[in-house]
């Protein structure tokens, strides 16, 4: 990719990050959620380290999920409403690339803050250090899948067509396995069971999503623009 073709992509990424920083809340809200959960759970169920350990991965994953979902609404919608999106087909830039940039910025805005603060939350929930590494690995493998699948869902639901909401719903079940495998991996580790199968599954899902979803998303956007 030469400098001139990369420039629009970089511009798009930087603009999205700037707008996200300006709005802030979207990435702050899940963090607040994460920490209020971390602070509240010990109150609710007593501060037994074992129990907290068991819940930790689930809570952190829910925060990541939440973060991703909250920001999904505006992913393509705002560009669609104000006419930026249709410009994607005027230029020569392949739309798949633009889609990937969008997904990338979604991941940076929503998943990265949660991942960055995971070590602290894990500490507060008594997660052993080795398990923390594994948890981070599952987050790094799994959150991009969330962004990809979420992006596809929001592309499908973009138009005012009523079927959209339904299609979106069909997509969400795709996310549940990611959640289950990721938290499963950490529980397996804590129970002394092998974690490789879980990780391999996540990797497979990620590779699949990465190769298929951007194309599908671009096609969905195109259809919705008509």
């Amino acid at each position, binding site marked *: 990719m030469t400098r*001139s073709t990369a*420039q*629009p992509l*970089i*511009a*798009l990424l930087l*603009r999205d990050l*700037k*707008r996200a920083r*300006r*709005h802030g809340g979207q990435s702050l809200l899940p963090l607040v959620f994460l920490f209020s959960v971390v602070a509240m759970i010990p109150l609710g169920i007593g501060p037994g380290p074992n129990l907290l350990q068991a819940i930790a991965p689930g809570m952190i994953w829910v925060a990541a999920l939440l973060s991703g979902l909250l920001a999904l609404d505006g992913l393509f919608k*705002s*560009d669609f*409403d*104000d*006419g*930026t999106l*249709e*410009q994607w*087909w*005027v*230029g*020569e*830039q392949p739309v798949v690339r633009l889609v990937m940039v969008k997904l990338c910025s979604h991941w940076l805005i929503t998943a990265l803050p949660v991942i960055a603060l995971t070590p602290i939350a894990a500490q507060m929930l008594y997660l052993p250090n080795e398990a923390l590494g594994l948890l981070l690995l599952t987050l790094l493998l799994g959150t991009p899948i969330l962004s990809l699948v979420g992006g596809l869902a929001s592309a499908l639901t973009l138009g005012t067509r009523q079927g959209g909401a339904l299609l979106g719903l069909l997509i969400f079940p795709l996310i549940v396995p990611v959640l289950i495998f990721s938290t499963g991996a950490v529980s397996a580790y804590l129970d002394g069971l092998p974690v490789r199968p879980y990780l391999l599954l996540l990797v497979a899902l990620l590779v699949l999503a990465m190769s298929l979803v951007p194309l599908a998303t671009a096609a969905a956007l195109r259809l919705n*623009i*008509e």
Partner: protein
Amino acid sequence: MKPYLVASQVSFHRHSEAVFQPVDLNLLPAALCVVTGANGSGKTTLIRTLAGILPVSEGSLERNAAMAFIGHRPGIKDDLTCIENLSFMQRFYPSHPTREALGAHQALKQAGLGCHVRRLAGHLSAGQRRRLALARLLVSPADVWLLDEPYTSLDTAACQWVDGLLDHHLASHGAAIVTAHQRQPALTHTIDRLEVIAGARAT
């Protein structure tokens, strides 16, 4: 001279019916084509088809030039300032290498927004928004301009500014397709006209 755009019997179908009746068009350098037609006749649809946003349902379309399309909703972000919006456009929309491009600040000044540089686009008046949208033509120039009702909300001075832009663009071998209802372009160049007629179903 090779035409920038050749459309023959182009039409776009929605719900399996043509939105507008098939159009023939041959856009040469230095030509301006004004598209007219009643509300809902399909002018915007046609221009979006020509821009490549909508697929051609019938007929054939050949595009040999870099295009800039400015529609009713010109992609201005309300939560960015004027200069942030324009700098983004400058980098996002491809700029034709052989055409001269202005800096974002200069373009804003030309558009009469010199003292609103750091104002949020969401706080602009209707006419100022349109000026901002049109300023894009200065920062990332293209061969063919597709302008959907560029004169909307503009005052006399701004309309003349747009006329001047068009004149200059044509003089430097650019071409443009413009839709207009009330105010028509008043140029020194000759103008072609294209009347769009609604398709079968729409009345």
